[in-house]
């Protein structure tokens, strides 16, 4: 038993065993799901046969990444109120999906965002553009998740050596590829449902436990957290309130969070796995309730970790703020509860990367291969084969990227994924669904323009270079050390890139003569009524 650098008191063998049980159970389910996966609609959209509640649970499983579980609980434990602000943006964002996007998208598309745009525009260029931004968002998000896996290995399994961590990242990647290749969307969805149930049940139990220790009084819990971590925990501004720039940065982040969710491709794709638009609505309602309740739990868990573990011990643990929730589990329920929470954290990474991989592979196979390269002249079997090969390539990229990025500071990648989704995807989707005049040039300008502005601003932001060197660690908080080429003051580009993309989409549209009223009429009638929408296949 070599629990070298992991959380003190943790039992690595136990953690690994619980995780392996999860993997074994889910693999069996994935194999069973593979028996009924034959057509493209089965592979990409699980035959559109999931119910609203099932899909809602899967959406929350897809959305509640390790960053929102470990990250937010840890941020609340150490930075108090400012950590709570994140979760509110992540939740309110779902109203955009509910009111403006989910149902209309379900009625007009087949598998991808490109389907919706291609409905009334020139297929080839808009599908290529949709695929580029889908792949960009998926890869940024994927890389962030895989890099996070490296840190978790150290934290939860006590494996601190380079080679050992690389092996675990590779194993996680291979299991994820198996889920996607064998089970397709149906298998991936079941993995997400099981993971969401475990995560929410575990968080609920810990929340009751923490509250019970303080006589179910939030005020007493806060008092205990303040006694250990200082009064500033209850007030906003501990993390973002330092200067005018950090305040502006927070505003920018808040806007990207609330507008990015409804443009995340792996979220959009989930709406195609249900039979009707009404089920898509029901899925979002379930997702909103589950995600909302979960973030309320993290509020208690975060302050609970602050009170019972204390910010000092959290900051000194491997993985720092990410260690808050696991340390709290250890404090409450000993090694067994820690093992359960660790396994859930790994399951979370697995489920999220599987969802991202299937989305990226669908976008490449369906939009680029079948419709751009082959002009629609391809058999379903051929398209699904290409999707599987793409999933393999993306999985390999994710493993390689995760190994390369594990010691890098890549926290900005999640913010980048949300900023691209909010800048490149959301304006294009909204214009496409609601604006009669919108056309091909407008779509290309908003997608490529939004993508380009976001990436340029990030590259020249302090997230990549130029943050001052911390005297304690001797390292800068930026990704690149030693050089400073930043000129954009904010870490988060949303404040500039989102309005810019909306403006570009409008400008591109009015500068082009293309109009297609007949196709828009068909699209609008279908979107609002569900006439001629893709049906579920009989199981």
């Amino acid at each position, binding site marked *: 038993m070599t629990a070298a650098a992991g959380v003190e008191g943790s039992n690595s063998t136990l953690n690994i065993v619980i995780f392996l049980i999860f993997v074994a159970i889910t693999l069996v389910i994935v194999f069973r799901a593979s028996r009924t996966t034959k057509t493209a609609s089965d592979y990409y959209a699980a035959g559109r046969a999931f119910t609203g509640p099932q899909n809602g649970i899967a959406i929350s499983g897809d959305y509640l990444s390790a960053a929102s579980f470990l990250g937010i609980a840890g941020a609340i434990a150490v930075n108090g*109120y400012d950590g*709570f*602000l994140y979760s*509110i*943006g992540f*939740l*309110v964002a*779902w*109203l*955009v999906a*509910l*009111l*403006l996007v989910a149902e209309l998208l379900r009625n007009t598309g087949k598998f991808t965002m490109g389907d919706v745009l291609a409905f009334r525009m020139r297929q080839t260029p808009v599908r290529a553009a949709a695929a580029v931004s889908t792949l960009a968002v998926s890869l940024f998000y994927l890389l962030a998740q895989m890099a996070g896996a490296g840190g978790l290995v150290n934290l939860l399994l006590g494996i601190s050596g380079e080679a050992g961590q690389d092996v675990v990242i590779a194993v996680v990647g291979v299991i994820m590829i198996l889920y996607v290749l064998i089970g397709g969307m149906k298998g991936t969805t079941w993995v997400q449902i099981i993971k969401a149930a475990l995560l929410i049940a575990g968080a609920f139990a810990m929340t009751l436990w923490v509250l019970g220790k303080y006589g179910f*009084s*939030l*005020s*007493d819990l*806060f*008092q205990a957290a*303040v006694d250990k971590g200082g009064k500033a925990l*209850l*007030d*906003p*501004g501990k993390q*973002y*309130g330092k200067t005018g720039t950090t*305040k502006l940065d*927070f*505003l920018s982040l*808040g*806007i990207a969070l*609330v507008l990015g969710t409804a443009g995340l491709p792996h979220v959009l794709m989930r709406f195609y796995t249900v039979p009707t638009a*009404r089920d898509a*609505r029901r899925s*979002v*309602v379930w997702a*909103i*309730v589950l995600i*909302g309740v979960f*973030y*309320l739990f993290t509020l208690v868990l975060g302050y609970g970790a602050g009170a019972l573990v204390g910010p000092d011990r959290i900051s000194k643990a491997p993985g720092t703020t990410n260690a808050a929730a696991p340390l709290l589990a250890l404090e409450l329920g000993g090694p067994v509860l820690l093992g359960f929470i660790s396994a859930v954290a790994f399951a979370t990474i697995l489920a999220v990367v599987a969802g991202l991989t299937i989305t990226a592979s669908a976008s490449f196979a369906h939009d680029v291969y079948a419709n751009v390269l082959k002009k629609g002249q391809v058999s379903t079997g051929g398209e699904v084969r290409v999707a599987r090969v793409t999933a393999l390539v993306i999985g390999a990229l994710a493993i390689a990227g995760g190994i390369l990025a594990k010691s890098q500071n890549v926290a900005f990648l999640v913010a980048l994924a949300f900023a691209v989704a909010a800048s490149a995807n959301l304006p294009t989707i909204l214009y496409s669904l609601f604006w009669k005049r919108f056309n091909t040039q407008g779509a290309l300008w908003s997608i490529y323009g939004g993508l380009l502005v976001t990436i340029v601003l990030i590259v020249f932001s302090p997230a990549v270079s130029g943050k001052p060197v911390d005297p304690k660690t001797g390292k800068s908080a930026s990704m690149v050390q030693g050089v400073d080429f930043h000129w954009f003051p904010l870490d988060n580009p949303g404040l500039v890139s989102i309005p810019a993309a909306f403006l570009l989409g409008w400008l591109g549209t009015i500068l082009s003569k293309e109009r297609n*009223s*007949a196709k828009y*009429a*068909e699209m*609008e*009638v279908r979107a*609002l*009524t*569900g*006439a*001629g929408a893709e049906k579920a296949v009989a199981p």
Partner: protein
Amino acid sequence: MTDWESVQESPEFTELRRRLRVFVFPMTALFLLWYLLYVLLADYAHGFMSTKLFGNITVGLVFGLLQFVSTFVITGLYVRYANRRLDPVADEIRARVEAEPGR
């Protein structure tokens, strides 16, 4: 072939679109402004947000929890509105379109 443009111009469809937009557009503006107000207060009005109401419960915490409440309430309102005011009209138009010969 369905004549989509004539369906689009029909009074039933115009009414459906009006009902959808009259709900979702103002509601979106409302929750976005309400969220923006919250973010701006948390960002720039630290003193106000740190005011204690009772025990350790601050104005900021109550504002934050109210964002949860408003999200749940708007979700409920939309579902009720869609069930009563949108779905019946949409179903009727869809049934008519899909019953047309030649589809």
